[in-house]
């Protein structure tokens, strides 16, 4: 199911792009601390550079078309992950939060000992599970602000129209941050790992020669044994 990963990438990019068209029409959000505006989303040059202004209708048309792909793709992934048992490699375990801290220290070169790792390490388990939950969150908050009267209970669940919008926006910022870290990690993990995300297996050198181990959808440095095909 690594394909859903690759479908998601352009779809999410389009959702963010068209989402910006919508956001521009009423760009109310910013972060202020003690009344001082720290960040205002987004500066004028940003809008100009990406040709954002005055494209609300277009943005909505794209957003409410690609939402279907985002939803269906996400659903496929979740259904597959549940039925294939792949979730066992993905969902954080009880000790994952402790281990994730070790991973962080290791990645920042503070700690030398390698943290335990299966297909995914503890930090990956947390990050990848979180991103799926975030995806679901985007769908739910999105639906809540898309049809706040028909799905009034969803809107209520999200804390009302305003809060749902803020969550929806914050999740998007979350994706961008995730993406940044994700790309850095992929670069650090190297070519063999990246190749596996496309081909579904990773080449592992071992003593007598070269053996091949098949791994299924490996977004990052994992060496696991799993059957596919």
């Amino acid at each position, binding site marked *: 199911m690594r394909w859903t990963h690759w479908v998601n990438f352009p779809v999410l990019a389009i959702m963010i792009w068209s989402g910006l068209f919508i956001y521009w029409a009423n760009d109310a959000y910013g972060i202020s601390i003690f009344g001082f505006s720290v960040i205002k989303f987004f500066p004028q040059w940003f809008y100009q550079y990406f040709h954002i202004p005055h494209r*609300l209708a277009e943005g909505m*048309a794209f957003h*409410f078309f690609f939402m279907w792909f985002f939803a269906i793709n996400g659903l496929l992934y979740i259904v597959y992950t549940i039925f294939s048992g792949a979730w066992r490699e993905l969902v954080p375990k009880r000790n994952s939060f402790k281990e994730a801290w070790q991973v962080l220290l290791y990645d920042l070169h503070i700690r030398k000992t390698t943290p335990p790792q299966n297909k995914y390490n503890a930090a990956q388990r947390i990050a990848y599970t979180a991103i799926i939950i975030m995806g679901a969150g985007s769908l739910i908050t999105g639906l809540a602000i898309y049809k706040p009267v*028909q799905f*009034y209970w969803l809107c209520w669940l999200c804390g009302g129209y305003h809060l749902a*919008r803020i969550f929806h926006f914050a999740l998007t910022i979350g994706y961008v941050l995730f993406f940044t870290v994700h790309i850095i990690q992929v670069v650090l993990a190297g070519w063999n790992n990246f190749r596996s995300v496309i081909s579904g*297996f990773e080449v592992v050198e071992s003593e007598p020669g070269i053996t091949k181990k098949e791994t299924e959808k490996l977004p990052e440095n994992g060496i696991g044994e799993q059957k596919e095909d």
Partner: protein
Amino acid sequence: MESENKKKTKTPLTIEQKIKRRNFISFGAFFALSGGAFAGWKWLLNAQNETPGITAGARKPLRKAMNKTELFFRNFFSNKHLAKTYPKERAVKNVRVNGLIGINDDKDFDPMAWQLEVEISRTKSLKIGIEEIKALPKTEIIFDFKCVEGWDQIQHWAGVKMSDFIVHFGLDELAEKGYMGLETPNGRYYVGLEKDSVLHPQTILAYEMNGQPLTINHGAPLRLIIPVKYGIKNLKRIGKMFFSSTRPKDYWAKRGYDYYSGL
């Protein structure tokens, strides 16, 4: 797949060959599909706009998608789903004026001489004065008015329920046609609404805001308040009302927006 390959070749492939082969297939597929996706995206991005009609200004495939999406979400529409209402104190005093099309481009308008024209047939129409409308049971609503731009505001309106109005003036049968069209007196702003939303219990023909008669900029003497739609459908200063079995023209749907624009 792999085991089949093995059978076909006489000498078994070395592991290195197998790796190469699988990589080749995977990457080939990956690039072919990426290319396909990119071509598809380019096609959509450069797709022609629809032929201008009742709707206009959107890429053809996207308009099609909007209409399909409308049909899907109309399945969830119910008269029992109500927009959330608020206590009076929550309503803003300074109600936002966002659009004046059909109002500030009509300098000759005389609110005193105003009458609502309801088209009954091609040749016949009803003329209804504001006093007749005010004589009907009054319905108040304090709800969160939502603009397609993204802002919203809790506002307090009062008027006659559209469904009451329709029954009182014997328009039930006409309403069954499926759509209602509304226009400003000068015809510059116009909206089309499907029956379900027209008959929704929170849809009102409003003549009061915050307990006062409407001001000119808020659509005096009579305007539409329809909480199941974005603000763009809440037409101010209604001049003409008519019914149709097909979609009536709609100002913003002609400018690339979704015709339905339902909430």
